[in-house]
């Protein structure tokens, strides 16, 4: 099987779909943000056309080297890796989790609120998610105000406790500088048992995160904004992240699996950041150290890119559709009335 061409197309909700065509008639598709699609197309024309997409490991290294050389954002080559895996799995007529060597994933999931808990909307969103997906874990963004954050955590804990099973609270520090995060978390920890804090400090603040990890009871989670395997070395070496977060839109399947296995060696659990169609759930099947996957509220993005993953009883389960199992909606003004894979 050889890749013959690449194209990208804007779909609904401001996302693009990058598509690899092959000489065997298979199409490998992956989501990509519009600002990265031109770079992805260029990379694919230079490095993927003429290649066998099943060589995912080798191709990832070639793409990564070129992306580094040309200072391209990691998202450009990650989407191509996803599309190659889509082809590899389709060629075997099986879902990605099986191609990776996994059994059907049924992994813990947490409801992730991406809005500030300043109003009732956020809590309403959590209530809706819990009712629909049975979540017992949730991640709330911190406002930085002890009174408001305490109130929202209290409300969230109450909502989550409506389901059977152990409740876990995660918080998102939203880039709060380490000193501020330590003060706020230590205060919150007098009242709440917080499992994990994400997004402390500026992107890349290894020492700041290490300081937080040494100062609070919650596990510090980092890595979601890192885009290459080597980026994770200082986080592992300095004990700056108790939990590693992986974003498949930056690392692809190949890079994310490599980092997850390095984290496994370092006895670190991983959290998987939500990607369109919840495609990250496939990878969970082969990660011995997967703690949970993020679940975000159904929104316009989810409607534009559907996946083969369902949430029930606080867990995510992937389906059996071949490949990534994604379904891309056409733009509203497209002549096609049906979605296209």
């Amino acid at each position, binding site marked *: 099987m050889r890749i013959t061409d690449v194209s990208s197309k804007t779909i609904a909700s401001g996302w693009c779909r990058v598509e690899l065509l092959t000489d065997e008639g298979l199409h490998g598709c992956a989501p990509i943000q519009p600002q990265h699609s031109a770079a992805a197309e260029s990379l694919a024309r230079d490095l993927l056309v003429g*290649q*066998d997409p*099943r*060589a*995912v*490991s*080798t*191709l*990832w*290294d070639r793409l990564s080297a070129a992306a580094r050389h040309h200072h391209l954002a990691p998202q450009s080559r990650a989407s191509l890796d996803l599309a190659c895996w889509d082809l*590899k799995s389709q060629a*075997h007529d*099986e879902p990605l989790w*099986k191609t*990776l*060597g*996994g*059994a059907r994933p049924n992994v813990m999931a947490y409801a992730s609120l991406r809005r500030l808990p300043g109003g009732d909307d956020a809590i309403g969103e959590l209530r809706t998610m819990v009712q629909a997906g049975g979540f017992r874990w949730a991640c709330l963004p911190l406002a930085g105000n002890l009174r408001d954050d305490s109130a929202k955590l209290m409300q969230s804990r109450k909502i989550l406790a409506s389901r059977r099973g152990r409740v876990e609270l995660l918080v998102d520090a939203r880039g709060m500088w380490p000193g501020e995060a330590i003060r706020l978390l230590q205060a919150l920890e007098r009242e709440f048992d917080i499992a994990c804090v994400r997004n402390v400090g500026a992107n890349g603040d290894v020492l700041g995160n290490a300081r937080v990890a040494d100062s609070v009871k919650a596990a510090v989670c980092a890595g979601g904004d890192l885009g290459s*395997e*080597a980026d*994770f*070395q200082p986080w*592992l*070496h300095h004990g700056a992240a108790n939990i590693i977060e992986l974003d498949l839109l930056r690392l692809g399947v*190949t890079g994310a*699996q*490599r*980092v997850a*296995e*390095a984290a*496994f*060696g*370092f*006895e670190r659990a991983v959290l998987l950041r939500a990607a369109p169609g919840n495609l990250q759930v496939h990878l969970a*099947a*082969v990660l*011995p150290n997967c703690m949970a996957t993020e679940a975000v509220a159904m929104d316009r993005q989810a409607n534009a890119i559907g996946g083969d993953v369902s949430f029930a009883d606080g867990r995510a389960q992937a389906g059996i559709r071949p490949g990534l199992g994604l379904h891309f909606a056409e733009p509203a003004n497209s002549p096609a009335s049906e979605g296209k894979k």
Partner: protein
Amino acid sequence: MKITGYRYETYLMKLDRPIADCNLPEGLDLLPGSVLYLETDEGVTGISLGFGVEGVAALFHLIEGEDPREVVSLWMKINDYIHKLGNEGTANGALSSIDIALWDIKAKLEEEPLWRTLGAAEGRVKAYASGLDYCLSDEELFAFYRRMAERGIDGGKLKVGLDIEADMRRLGIMRDALSIASENPVLMIDSNEYWSPKQSVRFIRQMEEHYDIAWAEEPARRWDYAGLRLVSQQVKAAVATGENVNSIADFYPLVANQAVDVLNVAAGHSGITGCRQIAHLAHCYGLPVSMMNAQAEFMAHAAAALPNHIGMEVVDPGREQCLKFASYIEDGYIILSNKPGLGIEVDEEKLAALQANPPTGRGQFPFARREGAGRYIVPPQPGEVPWETSAGS
């Protein structure tokens, strides 16, 4: 698609030449062999070679009736199961053996070579020569490495340890033999944990006055991260280790404590799945890995898909009497075939013949650590080695 059964065969093989390190200078030419066959309801059988079959019976219930294509999940299931018993020794050998046979099945079902299943673009892996040569005369040493160099191999690893002057002479012989493949052959040494860390520093530095040594293997005990790091910091050569550990868990303290520069990975590191985990750990840490030798070089399938693999050990002592395979070495690379799976078949007739008439020879594997290891050198005794020692024997 389900796993339905298993069987295994054990046998003895007589090598084409003896092999040795400084712990057993006189060497041996008999090795135990084994083949694990994992059977499925669709008639596809996976094999693995060389170790660990004795423990399979205790683990088989974990995979019976399962889909062999879910090999990584099955690895996780077994790994979790054995954590109380300890993932070492027989348990780890069985896990390794099962995992490799499962990967063989997975690739066979896809009708593709395993290197492709694992994501490599080609079944081609850089090789280096390793004579396991402590028992070879100087002439035999030259002949071995020259034969390797004629196949384009430009790196060699010499067994050292008991006689530094002789080691240096033999390093020169190895270099000369390899010089037809490269003007600057890659030279490596392996003292197989015979030296203490400080002995390693003394002896390696002495060698480095005359030779550019790429790596020194096992210059301290496998778990001695402080000793390995000390050697790494005090010699120019990289420190390689890992051959005798079990899994990624054993590599963690070595990597985290900057005690290893090159990770030796092997089939016995809880299989291809475990081996890949270790390589990925090293990769994220900016460290290279080197695959240990294997019958018919079958672990080259895994090596081909690793981002940080620098060269696989080729020993070539003649361990393939009952195997049919199509891989070969050319221009310094192991070339794997496009046959499905590992690309290896067992010649059942030859296997049965080996079992019916076990060969005889010298030595027994595994063998003990030599007296003095880590404390003092016990030089080769008269008749122990077929080469001239500094004492004149």
